[in-house]
């Protein structure tokens, strides 16, 4: 199915609600209990949740990553940008493998899919990233990890449209914030979850930030991340804080697959280390 509304088979959106139709859209009372970490993800390992890593690829067979369910690459070919199915090149630089390893550590049973958009040079990389995101949204992933951003103003409108499209299609985009005085995207959009770093060592410690645009802080300092060749490397950066939140999102959706992105963000807030003391 295409992500373009006019090409899809979906019913037209409901712009209004007729009288007495409230009953027809009654939703289950899902939050009758207090929202604790136990309620949010106790007893789940993320089974059935499909997580996409939009990055430099994922090394196959890495012990910290385990099974990679699918790998595609977005490549420039004959002047255009195409999706190459069944990409066998793995990871070109290590960044995607590092992110995938963190997600796997937190959500051991989630599905991992690699969409390679980095590694083919700087020129045109914003277009390649956009095409990769379009593909990921089209595939209906539950979570898309984006430890990357663009500063290109020309692409901001399209990126914003895609972020909103993902939000309404129940695909949660989790994006790295920037710790530099420069505007970059998509992390600044309200329809994604933006992640910065804290200095603590517990992977499940995360904070809800009362002063956005950075919405959550996760572990981002001196982490032993999966690295090319089956090894690890000690790394620091928001790039690695982001997959912590992606992994926790995968856990929550593993237990509560009905949650929409705004409900998921609310659960994250309610279970954050500075909100609920458990």
């Amino acid at each position: 199915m295409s992500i373009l509304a006019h090409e899809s088979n979906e019913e037209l959106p409901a712009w209004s609600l007729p009288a007495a139709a409230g009953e027809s859209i009654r939703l289950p009372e899902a939050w009758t209990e207090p929202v604790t970490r136990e309620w949010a993800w106790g007893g789940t390992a993320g089974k059935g949740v499909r997580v996409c890593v939009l990055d430099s690829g994922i090394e196959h067979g890495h012990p910290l990553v385990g099974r990679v369910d699918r790998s595609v690459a977005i490549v420039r070919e004959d002047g255009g940008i195409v999706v190459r199915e069944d990409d066998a090149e793995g990871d070109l630089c290590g960044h995607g493998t590092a992110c995938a390893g963190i997600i796997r550590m937190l959500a051991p049973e989630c599905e991992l899919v690699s969409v390679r958009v980095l590694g083919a040079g700087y020129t045109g990389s914003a277009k390649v990233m956009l095409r990769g995101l379009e593909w990921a949204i089209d595939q209906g992933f539950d979570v898309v990890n984006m430890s990357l951003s663009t500063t290109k103003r020309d692409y901001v409108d399209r990126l914003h449209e895609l972020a909103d499209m993902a939000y309404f299609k129940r695909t949660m985009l989790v994006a790295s914030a920037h710790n530099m005085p420069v505007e970059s995207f998509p992390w600044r959009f309200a329809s994604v979850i933006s992640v910065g770093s804290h200095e603590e060592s517990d992977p499940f410690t995360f904070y809800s930030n009362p002063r956005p645009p950075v919405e959550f802080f996760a572990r981002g300092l001196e982490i032993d991340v999966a690295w090319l060749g089956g090894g690890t490397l000690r790394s620091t950066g928001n790039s690695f804080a982001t997959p912590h939140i992606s992994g926790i999102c995968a856990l929550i959706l593993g237990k509560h697959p009905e949650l929409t992105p705004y409900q998921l963000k609310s659960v994250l807030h309610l279970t954050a280390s500075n909100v609920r003391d458990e």
Partner: protein
Amino acid sequence: MSDLQAAVAAGVLGAEEGHRALLQSTAEVARAIFKARASSIFLLDTETDELVFEAVAGEGAQTLIGQRFPSSTGVAGWALVTRQPLVVDDLTADTRFSQEAAESTGYVPKALMAVPLLVEDRALGVLEVLDRSSEQPFSLADMNLLGLFASQAAVALDLLQRARRARAALAGEGELGALARVAAQLEAAGEEARLSGLELLRALERLLAPES
């Protein structure tokens, strides 16, 4: 009009060496701030999609200037394509990286900090700090300092690139060449010649001004 202004400015802004000194100084300061063994500034060559060593302080200095590699390889490449600052700490564990680094630069760092150099919506290059001091544990405040410092380096790099473009516009006997030469000569001339020159320029300005 911007080319014309840039061209005239280039005539009075000074030579390539001045800008090189600015970048070199930036690399030296980055090295000093983090008490590091070396620091490098890479420029993105958008024509070839490569990163080029533009300034190096400390280990590997001078022999590296002008060396180039594909824009998305190495830790510098990640920082560029993800637009994210990155720090890696035990690179020697990765023999592939070590070999590549040794072959290209003759120096194998154990730890590396890389930050993209961004001005407005453009990425100009990457700043790297190699083997920072391990006296103090690394903190996110260091990361923020790196980001702030990179913003300053990016401005310097932007100025350098603008001046280079202006100089390219002046190359040979192009129609803008005379303007820049006149500007440079005015700057260098003695007091009397300079005043006469300025008088002539004002006359030229009146001559060219549109009728009101």
